[in-house]
């Protein structure tokens, strides 16, 4: 009896110590900054009934890690760009929609491919023509939110061209998860509908991990260790888009993404603008070392990682929409021979990668006749 009581008392004390230290480390992580979970970074966002969240007009934050140090300012229109003046005569306006690859919090605004594209277009513009390229990327958005964001926010900016930066790396997964937003009323499907106990537990576990920096870091550490020794039990959901025998939710996600792009195309057309889709590759599609590492990891699960398959899936799905689809993968691979296109600590573009992408986009836009110029 006494032993049992002692055991219980030890267990309670141990749990208390674990929880207290967990809280202290979590607080430390959040207060220290350098993390997207830090309150300063989170202050960039505000809840939105349709989109879940959006960027907060006027908010500013600084993000510092070992690899970069950048300041982020949200303008009054609710995008990460300088203030947007009324459209001037002769001004041709481009809005770039997308996720974190477009928003690019890792670099200064001037270093983003959006800003560099504007510089390049203006450098060769014949007065009185000018170009204004607006960064409308929002961290964490998928194709569904990008469409809704344009419908509710950026269409008011009167763009002539809308560039949608799709990221095949995770857009299928995200589109499948947020398809409900396209429905009238946009209420989410009950998360636990029709799920087994194990699936419910997995969902609950994922939700918990998303809420805690400590758990995210711990998961990253554990998966790193498991990857190193080939013990990863499951393939990361985004990587499943690159499998020949992708699970049904990937096909469903691609279909939802296609639906969102079709709606966006119809919307832009109704407003007299043109839509162009740019397929932005994942790091391992460009970086050979990263690809070799992931290929080995996926290979251990008995699956084969096809480096270009996600891009091809999206290109095929969008082919019938009469929307130009620009694949920037081959020229980015060329650029990677000169310098790093992606960062080491995150799968986002380096300043060199942004510059290379801007150069590629300028050429492709001219080739597609979306902006006039020598390339046409």
């Amino acid at each position: 009896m006494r032993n049992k009581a002692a055991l219980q008392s030890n267990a309670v004390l141990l749990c208390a110590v674990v929880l207290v230290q967990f809280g202290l480390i979590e607080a430390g992580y959040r207060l220290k900054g350098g993390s997207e979970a830090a309150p300063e970074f989170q202050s960039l966002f505000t809840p939105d009934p349709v989109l879940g969240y959006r960027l907060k007009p006027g908010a500013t934050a600084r993000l510092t890690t070992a690899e970069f140090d950048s300041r982020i300012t949200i303008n009054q229109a609710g995008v990460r760009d300088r203030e947007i003046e009324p459209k001037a005569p002769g001004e041709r306006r481009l809005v770039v929609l997308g996720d974190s690859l477009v928003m690019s919090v890792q670099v200064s605004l001037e270093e983003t491919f959006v800003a560099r594209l504007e510089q390049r277009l203006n450098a060769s513009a014949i007065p009185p023509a000018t170009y204004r390229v607006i960064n409308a990327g929002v961290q964490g958005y998928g194709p569904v939110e990008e469409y809704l964001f344009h419908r509710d926010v950026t269409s008011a900016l009167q763009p002539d061209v809308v560039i949608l930066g799709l990221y095949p790396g995770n857009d299928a997964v995200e589109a499948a998860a947020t398809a409900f937003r396209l429905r009238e009323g946009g209420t989410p499907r009950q998360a636990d509908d029709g799920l087994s106990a194990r699936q419910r537990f997995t969902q609950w576990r994922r939700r918990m991990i998303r809420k805690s920096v400590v758990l995210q870091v711990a998961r990253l550490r554990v998966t790193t260790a498991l990857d190193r020794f080939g013990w990863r039990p499951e393939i990361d959901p985004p990587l499943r888009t690159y499998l020949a025998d992708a699970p049904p939710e990937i096909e469903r996600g691609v279909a939802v993404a296609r639906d969102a792009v079709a709606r966006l195309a119809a919307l832009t057309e109704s407003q007299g603008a043109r839509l162009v889709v740019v397929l932005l590759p994942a790091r391992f599609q460009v970086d050979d070392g990263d690809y070799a590492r992931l290929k080995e990891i996926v290979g251990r699960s008995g699956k084969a990682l096809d480096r270009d398959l996600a891009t091809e899936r999206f290109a095929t799905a969008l082919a019938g929409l009469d929307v130009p689809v620009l694949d920037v993968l081959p020229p980015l691979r060329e650029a990677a021979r000169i310098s790093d296109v992606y960062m080491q600590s995150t799968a986002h573009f380096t300043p060199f990668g942004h510059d290379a992408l801007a150069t590629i986009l300028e050429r492709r836009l001219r080739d597609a006749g979306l902006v006039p110029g020598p390339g046409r």
Partner: protein
Amino acid sequence: MVFNSLDFAVFFLAFLGLYRLLPHRGQNWLLVAASYYFYASWDWRFLALLIVSTLTAYACGVLLGRFEDEKRRRLVLFAGLGVHLALLGFFKYFGFFAENLRALLGLAGLRADGFTLQVLLPVGISFYTFIAMSYVIDVYRRQTGPCRSLVDVAAFIGFFPTLLAGPLVRASSLLRQIREPRAPTGAQAAEGAWLLLWGYFKKMFVADNLAHVVAQVYAPDASPGGLAVVLATVAFAFQIYGDFSGYSDIARGASKLIGIELMVNFRFPYFVRTPQEFWTHWHISLSEWLRDYVFLPLSFAFSRRLDGVRWLGLRDDVWIYAAATLVTMLLAGLWHGAAWTFVLWGAYQGALLVGFRVLALRTRRKQKPPPGGWVFEWGHAPAALVMFTLTCYGWLMFRADSLAQIAVLTGRIFTAFEPSQAVLRAVGLPLLLYAGPLVAIHAAEARRGSLETVAGWPRAARYSVYVALVYAIVLFGDFQGSDFIYFQF
């Protein structure tokens, strides 16, 4: 297979499960099989060396037990030592000596290309050859009895927890335990678990994180300022300590879980005040090995030659001590690696030991061990700080790639200190973060003079330490599974 890998975790758990099911003889067979598998996982070809070493030691033991004639016994001893020294000499030192000989002949205008031969260094060879040699010597000296069981000798020499980086166990301790039936107690299991946790913390949190900082400053193409050199050298002091003592702790912890006790190899060595104390707190098993098998025989040999001399006002015993110490420490330096930087480090350690001995004689300061055992007191702090500084300069030699780099880095400390906030942030801050918790726990242990200090703390404090160590490993530890530094020795 390294200790800080999932492969080892699975290997050890499977081993432990089987081990508990088997009787004593079966456990020893399993120990041999597991040890050979563990070693072969590095490179199966080197297994032959381990087998040769084991068979030689076993045969020598049997013959030494059989022969009474001193001449024949000595012949067996020399044969046993000769085989091991030949293995060590060829695999570890051939390249070094050949390169230096070629350079020497080159100075004389001669070419000697025939000496070029790439020899791979078998991991752990310095450890298991020394263990095997100590067995042969101990049997020769009749300090331990010859073992008739080849399996027991193989389990002793190939014992996987100590195989790659020690401690340098003796037959009187480990072989005796292997020959006797054993079952781990609850207390051993608890101590073992603590040692595993503490060892992994030292390796993955302290050593591997500091390694990145040190590598930047010591990179061959780097030109660091003096402050960066000083801080990186202190960081290296904690890196090598965390790495090596972490390995020893894991080895001791794993051994306790199978009911085997290994000697303590490190006792908070950066809190000591003298070089003599340092070598009784740092890599204790090597110090004792060198003392018993090199220093004492050398002292005996020198005493016959230097008996009665009195030079520079110093008596013969000082000269005997100096000569034996310098030779021993030069060999200790060479044991660490076939490079002039290690030889210089050994000479430096020898000079410190001799210098302090002479200084103690001149100032008539007697070194008496305190009656209750070694305990750190705050009054010792200034002397400990001086000793730590001297130790760190030794680590600069140890870590440098060449004698030229030692000269350059030393020069930077005195001629281009270049203090800056950037250096403090890049080197000083990680040093504080990664070494700070280790120093805090060791300070508490050194104050009591006991490595079991944490175990004696109140429950809440103890649990706080355990949980903090787990968090430190999981959240901030290096999960790249890098090798232990001492594997190369």
